[in-house]
C-alpha cells in the first residue's frame, strides 16, 4: 500500500508539472497582452496619441516584456515557495486576494454537490436494484431520465423562482445581505449552507441521475454473482449479505469516477453560478480571460485542475482500498 501511495503521489506531481506548462501555454495563447488592453482602456477617448514606445513602457512595468520561460519560472517559483500566484493587473492587487473567497465558495459548492450526489444516489440505487420492478425502481428510472435530460440552467431558474415565490428566501450570492459583512459564526455558516443548497441541488441533479443508473446496474450484476449465493448458503442474514458483498462492489464505479464528477461540476458551475449570481471561480475565469488578466486566469485554471487531479488521486486510493485486486496490477 505504501509503495502504491508513493507511486501515485509521484504520478500526481508529474501530472501537475505538465498541467502547469499547459496552463502557461494557454495563458500565452490569446493575441495581445494586458499592456495593450491597459493602454487602450486608459487612453482611448482621451485624445492622447499612444505610441508603440508607451505601450512598451507599460509592458515593461508589468514585467510582460521578459521571455515566456523566465516568466513561467518566476510564476512557478512564487507559487511553490510563497503560494503566491502573482499580480492581478485588472484588480491591481495580488491574485491570491482576488481568488481567495471565490475559491472557498467554489470548493464549498463542489463538496456539497459531491456529498449530496453520493448520499442520494448510492442508497437509492441499491434499494432499487434489490427491489427490482418495484414502484421505487420505476420512479427512479423516470426521475433519472429527467435528470439527464433537463439542462442545468433551466433547473436553476426554476429553483430560483420557486424558492423566492414559495419559500421567500433570498437566493443568489453566498450570504443573505445581513450576514455579508458579519464575522463568522454558526448562524452565518447556516446562512451559507442555506445558500449553497440550491446550486448544490442543481449541480447534483444530473450527476445523481447518472450515478443512480450506474450503481443500480452494477448492483444488479453483483446480486447475481455466485459469491452472493454462496454467502447466503452460509446462512448469513440477508441485509448483511447485501451490504458486505454486492453493495460494496456496486460503489466501485462511483468511486472510480469521482474525478469525472469533479470535472463536470467545474464545467457546469459557471453557467449555474451566473444564473444564481454566485461569486465563484468559473465566472471570474471567463472575465479574466476577456480582460487578458492572465495570472488570474492561470491561477484559476491551476486550481481547478489541481482539484480534479487531487480528486482523481483520492478516487484511485479509495478504489485500491475497496478492491484488493487493484493493488496487484495498479503499480
Amino acid at each position, binding site marked *: 500500500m505504501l509503495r502504491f501511495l508513493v507511486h501515485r503521489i509521484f504520478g500526481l506531481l508529474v501530472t501537475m508539472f505538465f498541467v502547469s506548462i499547459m496552463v502557461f501555454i494557454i495563458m500565452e495563447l490569446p493575441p495581445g497582452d494586458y499592456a495593450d488592453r491597459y493602454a487602450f482602456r486608459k487612453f482611448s477617448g482621451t485624445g492622447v496619441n499612444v505610441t508603440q514606445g508607451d505601450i512598451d513602457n507599460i509592458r515593461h512595468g508589468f514585467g510582460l516584456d521578459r521571455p515566456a520561460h523566465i516568466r513561467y519560472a518566476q510564476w512557478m517559483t512564487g507559487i511553490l515557495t510563497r503560494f503566491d500566484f502573482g499580480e492581478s493587473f485588472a484588480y491591481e492587487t495580488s491574485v491570491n486576494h482576488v481568488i481567495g473567497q471565490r475559491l472557498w465558495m467554489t470548493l464549498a459548492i463542489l463538496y456539497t454537490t459531491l456529498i449530496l450526489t453520493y448520499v442520494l444516489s448510492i442508497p437509492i440505487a441499491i434499494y432499487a436494484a434489490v427491489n427490482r420492478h418495484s414502484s421505487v425502481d420505476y420512479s427512479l428510472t423516470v426521475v433519472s431520465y429527467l435528470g439527464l435530460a433537463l439542462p442545468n440552467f433551466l433547473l436553476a431558474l426554476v429553483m430560483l423562482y420557486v424558492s423566492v415565490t414559495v419559500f421567500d428566501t433570498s437566493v443568489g450570492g453566498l450570504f443573505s445581505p445581513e450576514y455579508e459583512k458579519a464575522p463568522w459564526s454558526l448562524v452565518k455558516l447556516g446562512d451559507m449552507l442555506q445558500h449553497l443548497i440550491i446550486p448544490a441541488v442543481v449541480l447534483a441533479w444530473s450527476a445523481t441521475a447518472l450515478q443512480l443508473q450506474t450503481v443500480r446496474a452494477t448492483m444488479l450484476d453483483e446480486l447475481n454473482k455466485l459469491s452472493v449465493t454462496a454467502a447466503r*448458503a*452460509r446462512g448469513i442474514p440477508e441485509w448483511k449479505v447485501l451490504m*458486505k458483498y454486492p453493495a460494496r462492489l456496486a460503489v466501485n464505479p462511483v468511486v472510480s469516477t469521482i474525478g469525472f464528477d469533479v470535472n463536470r461540476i467545474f464545467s457546469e458551475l459557471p453557467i449555474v453560478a451566473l444564473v444564481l449570481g454566485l461569486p465563484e471561480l468559473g465566472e471570474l475565469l471567463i472575465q479574466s480571460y476577456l480582460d487578458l488578466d492572465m495570472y488570474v486566469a492561470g491561477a484559476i485554471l491551476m486550481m481547478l485542475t489541481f482539484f480534479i487531479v487531487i480528486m482523481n488521486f483520492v478516487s484511485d486510493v479509495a478504489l485500491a482500498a475497496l478492491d*484488493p485486486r487493484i493493488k496487484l496490477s495498479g503499480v
Partner: protein
Amino acid sequence: MKPMPDKVPTPSDLLIDVQDLKVSFQTDEGLITPVDGVTFQVRKGKTLGIVGESGSGKSVSTRAMVKLLPKNAIVNPDSKILFYGNGNGTCVDINRLKANSPEIRRIRGGEIAMIFQEPMASFSPVYTIGNQIVEAIRQHRASGMSPLASTATVGSQIMESVQAQKKMKRNDARDLAVEMLDRVGIANPGMRVDQYPHELSGGMRQRAMIAVALSTHPKMLIADEPTTALDVTIQAQIIELIRDLQKELNMSVIFITHDMGLIARVADVVAVMYLGVIVERGRTDDLINDPKHPYTRGLLDAIPRLDRLDRRLTPVAGDIPSPLERPPGCPFHPRCPERRANLCDREMPGRTQMENNRFVRCFLYA
C-alpha cells in the same frame, strides 16, 4: 468400493426426506417447471449422487432444499422437505420455513452446507479467504468449540438460534479457520488465511470452499458439480478429500454431477434426473452394472471405458429441450431409442419398484 445394501430407510436412519418437490419459475416467457415432482431420501453418512445434463433440475432441487432460490421461484406448498437434523426422530419441514427466517438460516450453512461448481466465483474477490470462513464460523458456532467437534455437541437443536448463544470470538474463529484450511490440505494455512481468492490456485480455492462449508460442522454437504471446473488430477484429490471428511464427520453428501464415471466412485445411491423428473434411482452398483432406463443407458454409453477401447462412444442423441417446450408424456420420449408410439408421447410412466429399493420410470418395465 462396496456400498452397503440399501435398506428401506427408517426415520432414525434418515437425514433428509424430500417428497414430491415441485419448483416453478415465473419468467417473461411464461411459467416453467424445472423440477416436477422429485422424491428422494438421503441417509445419515451416505452419499446420494444426482446425475443429469444441464437443465435437468439438479441444482434447482438442491437449492430448493435450503430455500436458496431466486425471488421468482415458486415451490409447490404441498412439497415436503423433511429434515431430521436434531437426532431425536422429529423433523422440520424446510418448505414451511419462511425464506430468510432465522430457522432456515441456521440450517443453511450450519446444518446443510453447499459448495459450488466455480470455486473462483464462490468467493467474493474483495475479502480474504479467512474473512469468509470466519464469517461462516461466527454465524453458526458458539464459543468454546473445537474445529471438528462431535455432532452431538454442535448446537443440534434446530430451533435454538445461535444468536442467543455467545458468538465465538474473532480470534478463536480465525484459529479455527486456519485449522480448517490445514485439514483440507492447504499448505501454509497461516499465510493462506490472509490471502485473497485470486492469489490461490483453482484446486486450492475448491479446498478452501470445502473448508468454509465444513467449518460449521454441517450434517449434510451439497456438492454442486464441485470438480467440473478442475483438472482431472485435482478432481481426484478433491473427491478423496470430500470422502475422507465425510467419514470423519459422519456427514451425508448430495453429489451433483453430469459425469456418470465420477458418480460411480462417490455415490452410494444414484438418482438420474431428466427434465425435472427422477427417471431412475437405485444403488450405485446396480445402476451402473444394469441400467434400466434408456436415458441411464445412454449416459453410461457416453463415457469412455478403459476395458472397451475398441468401442466408439455413443452420445445421447438430441438435446435436452427448453423447459418452455416440455414434451408431453414421458419427457425423454423425443430422444428415446425405444419409445413406443401412442404411449410414451401421451402418458407419463409411473414408478416401477424393483428390488434393493430401486425404481425406474419407464413403460419398458411397467
